[in-house]
């Protein structure tokens, strides 16, 4: 047992010290952070003035939205369906619908648009609505507080000085309003779909591709490692100290740890870069400027809401939107499944790659064995594109149950919600298959690593399975 740990340690350390590992570890997060940051910039670069209709049933926000060089707001007074049709007919950009709230203040709105409504528009809307609602609430609170202290108080006599003294932390907490903005796309046939799905699709596809990428990257690292040992002839020295199975498992586990390390570093570094970006450019990213504006005991700038410019508010809403959508996904299941399917899929393919490495003398000979092994993986990635459009269909079901494709396809499906029994079945099958694969790979490996100068056929590999120790 000690020896397998030594092998794992060597495999791990020799890889994480490599230049390529360090370069990948640094480049990965930069690319991923760019995925978050670049779209925000791109959305600001558009110079076309977009027409946005506003259907405000509350009447609170009439004339609160100001035209800018990017958006031209126009108020409509009709019912929702007519407004939608009208917006479509005149090729407007979006329709903002603020329904009359049932009980309290307006806290939600909907954007209807043909294309995905841009992040900065949503940010602006949320910020304007938030400010207005908070302002109204604040006024009401102040009046209530003052009346509590002085029942004879006349609202019209309120002066700035008394307002300042009254605004407390508690009040600020009370008035904090979260505007819920639902974005709804009007499809070609006027069909409405929630753009929430897009986040699910994005997350699913991203997870699927990540698993595909990890299996390929680290699986072939295992294979190259085995070939390296065979070519350099060190393998005979090693197997006189450890069992071939220990050597193989040590290598597979060591490389898996490298993969997990890389993944963790990516997550941490990506978060770090995004955080640094937020701190360095607060005007781009700050999400809670309302709280700062209304500091307890400070003068309330009367014109605060009028001075808001677009940049101040758009990015936090982008983050909020993504986080909100991400919240709709079962996070626990997602992370657990990702680690499980990454390890399961990697062990399954890693074992097969190790067996291939053992069966050949050099990397160019791997082709004939690589093909059949990689076909299910490539197939899975192709099928994934159909699966995201129909995550409940029979194709999605079967490909997420069959162990050779399930690590990828199941990850694509999970953000859409998968019944637990399907998940359990898929995981059980994957576990059984990788145990079988590791066993078979161990048999092939044991014979293959000491076999030189022989072109091995599939039939030959089959025979190796049944050789006695």
């Amino acid at each position: 047992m000690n020896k397998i740990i030594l092998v794992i340690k060597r495999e791990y350390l020799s890889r994480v010290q490599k230049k390529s590992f360090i370069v990948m570890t640094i480049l990965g997060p930069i690319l991923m952070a760019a995925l978050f940051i670049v779209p925000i910039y791109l959305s600001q670069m558009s110079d076309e003035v977009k027409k946005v209709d506003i259907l405000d049933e509350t009447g609170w926000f009439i004339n609160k939205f100001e035209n800018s060089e990017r958006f031209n707001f126009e108020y409509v007074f009709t019912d929702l369906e007519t407004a939608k049709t009208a917006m479509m007919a005149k090729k407007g950009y979006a329709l903002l619908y603020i329904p009359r709230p049932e009980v309290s203040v307006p806290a939600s709105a909907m954007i209807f648009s043909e294309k995905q409504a841009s992040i900065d528009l949503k940010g602006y809307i949320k910020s304007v609505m938030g400010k207005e609602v908070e302002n109204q609430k604040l006024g009401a609170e102040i009046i209530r507080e003052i009346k509590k202290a002085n029942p004879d108080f006349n609202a019209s006599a309120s002066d700035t000085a008394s307002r300042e003294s009254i605004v407390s932390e508690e009040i600020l907490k009370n008035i904090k309003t979260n505007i819920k903005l639902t974005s709804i796309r009007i499809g070609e046939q006027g069909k409405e779909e929630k753009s929430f799905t897009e986040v699910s699709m994005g997350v699913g596809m991203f997870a699927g591709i990540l698993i595909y990428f990890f299996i390929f990257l680290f699986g072939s690292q295992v294979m190259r490692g085995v070939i390296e040992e065979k070519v350099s002839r060190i393998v005979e020295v090693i197997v006189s100290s450890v069992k071939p199975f220990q050597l193989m498992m040590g290598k597979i586990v060591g490389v898996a740890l490298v993969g997990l390390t890389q993944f963790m570093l990516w997550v941490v570094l990506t978060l770090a870069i995004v955080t640094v970006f937020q701190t360095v450019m607060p005007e781009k990213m700050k999400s809670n400027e309302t709280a700062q504006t209304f500091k307890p005991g400070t003068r309330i700038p009367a014109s605060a809401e009028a001075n808001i410019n677009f940049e101040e508010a758009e990015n936090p809403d982008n983050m909020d939107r993504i986080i909100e959508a991400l919240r709709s996904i079962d996070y626990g299941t997602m992370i657990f499944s990702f680690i499980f399917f990454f390890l399961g899929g990697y062990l399954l393919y890693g074992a097969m790659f190790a067996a291939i490495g053992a069966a050949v003398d050099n990397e160019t000979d791997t082709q004939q064995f690589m093909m059949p092994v990689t076909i299910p993986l490539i197939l899975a990635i192709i099928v994934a594109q159909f699966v995201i459009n129909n995550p409940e269909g029979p194709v999605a079901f079967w490909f997420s149950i069959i162990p050779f494709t399930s690590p990828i396809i199941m990850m694509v499906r999970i953000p859409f919600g998968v019944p637990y029994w399907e998940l359990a079945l898929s995981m059980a099958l994957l576990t059984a298959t990788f145990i079988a694969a590791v066993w078979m790979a161990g048999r092939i490996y044991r014979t293959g690593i000491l076999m030189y100068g022989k072109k091995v056929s599939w039939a030959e590999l089959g025979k190796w399975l049944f050789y006695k120790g």
Partner: protein
Amino acid sequence: MAYFSVRNITKRYAAHTALSNVSMDVPEQSIFGLLGPNGAGKTSLIRIINQITGPDEGEVYFGNEKLAPHHVDRIGYLPEERGLYKKMKVGEQALYLAQLKGVSKSDALKKLKYWFEKFEIQAWWNKKVEELSKGMQQKVQFIVTIIHEPSLLIFDEPFSGFDPINVNLLKDEILNLRKNGATIIFSTHNMASVEELCDNIALINNSHKILEGSVKEIKKRYKTNTYSIDFDGYSGPVQSLLPAGFMLAEDKTDDDLRQVTVTLPASANQNELLNAFMPYVSIHAFREIIPTMNEIFIKTVHAAGNHSINS
């Protein structure tokens, strides 16, 4: 009591039999030559001893103990096809291989330091293996083979790739190891080094053991009662001088001296040969012709037949 013994080992592969019913005893603190033509089954036997593969039939014993997994730490193996991780640093790698043999890290460091100094390669500790010359790599390989002070050492062609100076260094080390108590199995095709180093040998041909014993005893066994005489002062035919039954094997003249080689009948004494010559010639040298291991090897393998070359 043999320190290490192999009992009735048979190993079959799909197409052929690598070892059939092979037994041998390796006495303690001796150098045991494991000989045989290519493809005879030596490597298969060595792999069985190292527990890389298992035999189909038969057993291997360490004294009275049956070979078990924990014995790998008592064996040091230098394979014929050797290698190291090319991208790994020399010291790191030596440390790793020593630890795989169960040596603790601090112990391994101490011992490696000693050996690296002895072999004058301490400057290479932090170099990558691929930067080393072949001879240097072989030295590192030799060190990691013996670093855990194994009681049984298996050297498969240990001298290949070494220059004569290093061959001598290595020979001295091997003899030293025996002196310090190690038992050594030595596989080679170099018969000169067998004569020089081995106490006992076993010859395997075509999966069968065809010869075993001490080097001295085997040489004695293969003696043919042949003698050679160097003389001058006589240039006539030699055969006429010889007693009946004596066979002239060779007759040649080098510079001034004539050298004849004569095979005697089993019953005859070498003094009879001298007596036959003395009246006619003046003798410069007289010696018994003892077969070399090389001759014994070739003779035995040919006699066993079915010698498949390089198969």
